[in-house]
């Protein structure tokens, strides 16, 4: 390289010397151009961090949703149960037995003879017949029978028919003593009469 320069210097006029001097290549210190690592590391950590945080948030969210789902499921179960309970209640209210009891309280009985009114022209089909007590059906079971110890044999008192008003008044105290403390005093007569009729029906039922 120095020989080349010397040749050029030999040939070139002195005038170009400065230019040549300027164009001379010299060694420059090597520049270290390593890319800055910090941004990359930050980026990697950021991605990592975001991933972890995202995953964490996703998981938390899932958990939260799971709690919510559990809560909603419990509520749905509860509401379903409530609906079923209401349905049950409705069915009980609709039951023919309850309707019949309600009707009976209003004094209704099932008609013995069907009859219809044609709404179109108002004509009556069938034989309209007023319902009678005979059409009534006992809709409630008979009361359960008492066990024998609680069901003593009825006391039957045969009362001789009064012949005259005088003998009748004489007979009254006798009757009172025979029926085990049954007095014929007017104020209690009503209740006692009830008692005797009940005995009477039981006696009939026993036969």
């Amino acid at each position: 390289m120095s020989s080349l320069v010397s040749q050029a210097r030999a040939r070139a006029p002195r005038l170009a010397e400065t230019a040549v001097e300027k164009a001379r290549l010299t060694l420059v210190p090597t520049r270290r151009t390593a890319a800055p690592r910090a941004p990359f590391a930050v980026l990697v950590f950021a991605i990592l961090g975001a991933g972890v945080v995202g995953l964490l948030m996703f998981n938390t969210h899932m958990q939260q949703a799971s709690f919510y789902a559990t809560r909603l499921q419990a509520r749905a179960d509860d509401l379903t149960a409530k609906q079923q309970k209401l349905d049950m209640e409705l069915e009980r209210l609709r039951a023919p037995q309850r309707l019949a009891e309600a009707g009976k309280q209003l004094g209704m009985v099932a008609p013995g003879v069907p009859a219809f009114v044609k709404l179109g022209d108002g004509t009556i089909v069938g034989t309209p017949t007023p319902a009678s007590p005979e059409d009534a059906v006992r809709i409630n079971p008979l009361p359960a029978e008492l066990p024998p110890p609680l069901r003593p044999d009825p006391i039957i008192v045969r009362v001789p028919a009064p012949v005259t008003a005088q003998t009748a008044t004489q007979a009254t105290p006798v009757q009172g003593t025979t029926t085990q403390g049954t007095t014929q005093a007017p104020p209690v007569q009503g209740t006692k009469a009830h008692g005797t009729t009940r005995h009477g029906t039981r006696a009939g039922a026993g036969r």
Partner: protein
Amino acid sequence: MTRSRRPVAGSRSRWRGSPEVRLRVGLIVLAMVMSVFGVRLVQLQGLDPKAYAAKANAEGLVSVPLSATRGSILDRNGAPLAESVSGLMIVADPKRTNAHAEDIARILATRLHLDYFDVLGRLREDPNKPGARFAYVARRVPATTARSAVAAIEKAGFKGVDTRLDPVRDYPGGDVAANLIGYMKADGQADTGGGLERSFDAMLAGKDGRETYEVGGGNRIPLGENTEVKPVNGKNLTLTIDRDVQWYAQRVLRTAVQGAKAESGAAIALDSRTGDILALADYPTFDANQPGQSPEDDLGSRALSNVYEPGSVEKVLTMGGLLDAGKVTPRTKVRVPKALPVADRVIHDYFPHDTIRLTLAGVIAKSSNIGTVLAARQYAPGQLWKYLDLFGLGHRTDIGLPGETRGLLPDPSTWTQLTQATASFGQGVSVNALQMATAVNAIANGGELITPSLIQGRAVTSTGNVVGTDTASRRRVISQQAAEKVSRMMEMVTTEGAGTAPGAGIAGYRVAGKTGTAQQVGGTCKCYDGSLAVSFAGFAPADNPRFTVYVVIQKPQGSASGGGTAGPVFRKILAYLLQKYAVPPTNTPPARLPVEW
């Protein structure tokens, strides 16, 4: 930089040694690690895999049975006769509830309408069972009620009361159709106790599922293990029963059976045209919600299981056969003597009379045994048996209920002159109530017998029988003309002044009917012990039948008769049906047949 690194690299490579050495060392380490893994793998999978799997499962893995909902039993209009609701049982740990038993019992008793002392006893520690940590407080409580009661207890600061799943089978009607539906036993979920609940258990029950999942803190872990076998819910069973008619029939029947002090009774209402059973009532019956409170004998249907001699109702079948065979007409004249000796016996009528002159219509209207026996002499040998067999006597109706009796129609080879005579008026042959109703319905349906159905559509019983309205079959038993003639003769029964049961007629309607008062064979002596079965069968409107009703009351005490005891039951049920289904009177002139000559 390169210059400064070089010495470090040099020292490191020296420390690492040559690549060959490094490879060899790495291989050895790798082989050791892999063999450790291998040993562990053999240990886990080869030696005792199940114990480890179970251990893993136990860790936070919850397995919940998903119970299938049992199908409902519905009536023909969709009203539920039996339905399942999710329920809970309330259980207590007496060890924890003992201290505050009074307070807890007060809350439970008021909220669940239980007996206070009963609950108190369950919450207290039982000296007979020391250390018991489980006690039932209440079973089959609706879920809302149970949860709110337990919540109230927890709010009050008491512990030891909890709930568990306990499905409730609810019968909204109580005893309505209980004889058909059956019941569920309280202690077992799949344990059924008879009736349709048992014969259609496979179809109603469905199939339970199961769900397995991981939990943490009471909540499901979202991405955890999760397997689910979905439950298959049971199918609904729809009956041909009309709930209202069934209820009314049961009440009317109960009133009559109790009034007659009878042993039992059955009432059946059929749709004459389709054979659908609209009502099948039994008394005594039971409350399906509390089957344990009734005697075991009352838990089934006596209409199907009870076998008895039908008596005079059967005369209409005898007459139907005679008319079909062309041997007689309703006006055929019969001279009925006071008594009729047959073989070694003498046959009487229920009413004393001298020799009377009745037409065949009169024989039915007055229910004369002697007249029927005389008429039945027109039959060729074996012919009566053939007709009774065609009418379905001695064959199960197979409607899908368990425990049906076949009845008894003696084999024709064993028939004697006496058998022929008694069979003609319904003694010496045995039936169940549904068989008899079906036979009478054949006359209502113009001589064509329809097999009765209880199930709408089709369903398969647990024993593999296919039943239902879809499988109902029809067969001709007697000609339409013969059936119409029998129907007109039966109309005379409810005609004032002519028949035995004018009280069974409904004003404005043409009602065909027949009374029956049959002697019954006692259980111990195998002879007629004086007990009776009074019955009434019939249909309306007689010229265009819509409903057939059959009522039988077993062993009434005192004076009872088919017309007087069973007749009013028949009339009330029939009137109710005609009104409910809006069947107007046909407005045709009633049958006027001579009964005497």
